[in-house]
């Protein structure tokens, strides 16, 4: 049995089919990239897995448990964490308080939550900005805070929705190192949506490609870049070899 098993997910927004019979499996410890052109249904698929949307049909099975249609806070408790493409930046809470909220998912004790949050921030290299507010930080750090707070909920599967967007080269390289460390040191399985090909191809063990809501390819990064269907989806017919 696979760690995460998606079978035949269909999500139809009144005529616009965002996900059409999408199926794939992820094994524990893998880093899987989910790519596809804009509007391919990647984020919709994330939302179906985590529970912001209820899929019209199909099943999501996580660690041999059917989690289809569970609410986001329940899937989070089951061990799935996710980050958001667009993070709301508010001045309401400090960085460490943000991460403490995540830690409170697994504990009721304030002191435990505080020390866990503190440890998580140190791990991500954010130890020096603990008392800052989100709006006072550069975007790369805001993303890391978003990552820190979901990591504090101790997910076994972490789903990242375009964490690298808006980051420059060095920041992206740092992030790649960080994701690898997470995967190796904390044993977190990663599923990431990403637009930056260099990044997704270098970090992923395996890549899944969506186009118009359907899975068009799945394989090793080296295979995917040569796949005719993928090239067609990204660049149009005339760049594919057969035409």
């Amino acid at each position, binding site marked *: 049995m696979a760690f995460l098993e998606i079978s035949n997910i269909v999500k139809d927004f009144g005529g616009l089919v965002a996900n059409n019979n999408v199926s794939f499996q992820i094994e524990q410890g893998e880093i899987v990239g989910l790519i596809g052109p804009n509007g391919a249904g990647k984020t919709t698929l994330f939302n179906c897995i985590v529970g912001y949307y209820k899929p019209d049909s199909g099943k999501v099975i996580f660690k041999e448990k059917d989690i289809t249609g569970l*609410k986001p806070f329940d899937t989070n408790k089951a061990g799935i964490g996710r980050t958001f493409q667009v993070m709301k930046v508010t001045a309401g809470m400090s960085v460490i308080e943000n991460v403490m909220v*995540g830690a409170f998912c697994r504990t009721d004790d304030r002191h435990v939550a505080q020390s866990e949050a503190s440890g998580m921030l140190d791990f991500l290299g954010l130890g020096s900005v603990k008392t800052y507010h989100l709006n006072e930080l550069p975007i790369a750090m805001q993303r890391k805070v978003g990552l820190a707070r979901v990591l504090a909920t101790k997910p076994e599967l972490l789903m990242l929705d375009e964490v690298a967007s808006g980051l420059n080269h060095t920041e992206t390289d740092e992030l790649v190192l960080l994701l690898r460390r997470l995967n190796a040191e904390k044993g977190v399985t990663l599923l990431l949506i990403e637009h930056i090909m260099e990044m997704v191809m270098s970090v992923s063990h395996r890549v899944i490609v969506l186009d118009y809501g359907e899975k068009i390819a799945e394989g090793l990064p080296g295979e995917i870049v040569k796949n005719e269907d993928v090239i067609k989806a990204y660049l149009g017919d005339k760049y594919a070899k057969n035409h």
Partner: protein
Amino acid sequence: MEKLKDALDFRDFSRAEQIGLIIFSIFLFIFPWLGSGSFVKAVMIQFLLFSLFGMGWNTIGGYGGQVELGKAQYVGIGAYTVALTMVWWKIPFWVSMPMGVLLAVGYSFMIGYPLFRLKGHYFAIATICTSLVLQDIFANWKLVGAAKGIELPIHDHPDFLYMQFKSDTYYYYFIMVLFYVALFYMNWFRRSKLGYQLRMIKDDEDAAESLGIDIRWCKIKAYTIASAFVAVGGGFMAVYNLYIDPASVMDLDLSIKIALMAMLGGAGSLWGPIIGAAFLVPLDRFLGSWLGGHKGLIGLDFMIYSMLIMVVSAYQPRGIWGIIEQFRRKGS
């Protein structure tokens, strides 16, 4: 034990705030001996009462960020429970007040459960509606005195069991004790799991949900806590005024005052509701009695009242406390 320690721990506040709290506490304690008249004493009692209301509202309205404009219905439940059980069965205040709180908690759960399917303005409107409905029911219900209200039986001699005293000083100290219980509770609450979760909900509901927070359940919990707070205050109103009617304990005016004071002072901060009440209660009272009494000046108190609110909300949505913090951040 741990919770009690947290409740009494004000160490994470600045030195200025700690000293302020100590001076304020000394003032509260010696106030009845300062020789002020009964009118000023009544204003102080109102101030403490509205601080209590405001702190309760602050759980759901301030920390949780839900615009709640129906707290009067729970004031009413607290007040009516105390008054009716005293009139019908001579049940002492110390029994009927907790009963009122339990009823308010139960009722608020019933109301909150469906209401928290709504968000934003829709939620605010719905809270107003439920409160108005309850007020109308009580205003037409013969058994509970309808619009005429209920008078509590007055005892010949002071009676601690029924909270009847000749002097306002006793009431003053009683509401002061309630005020401190509320303050310590809120001091614990702001650093509790629920407190943090509510602030996250206020900031970003989607993110909160992705962090394992059951948003609706958290809101319901905070809503029932807020209702318990104001029901205590309602019970106090019944024994203090010795007369209650739907217009005095269930009116929309009361709901709005509760929310307004907390918002003006600074929603989502520990001191906010106290500061708000310290501004608005005296303003309300003194302006009402001095200006409202003169011919041609009727309504001037309301104008000043609303001007103040407009100025503060335009300048700093986080209220007076927000303005103070803004200056402090600039200064440091």
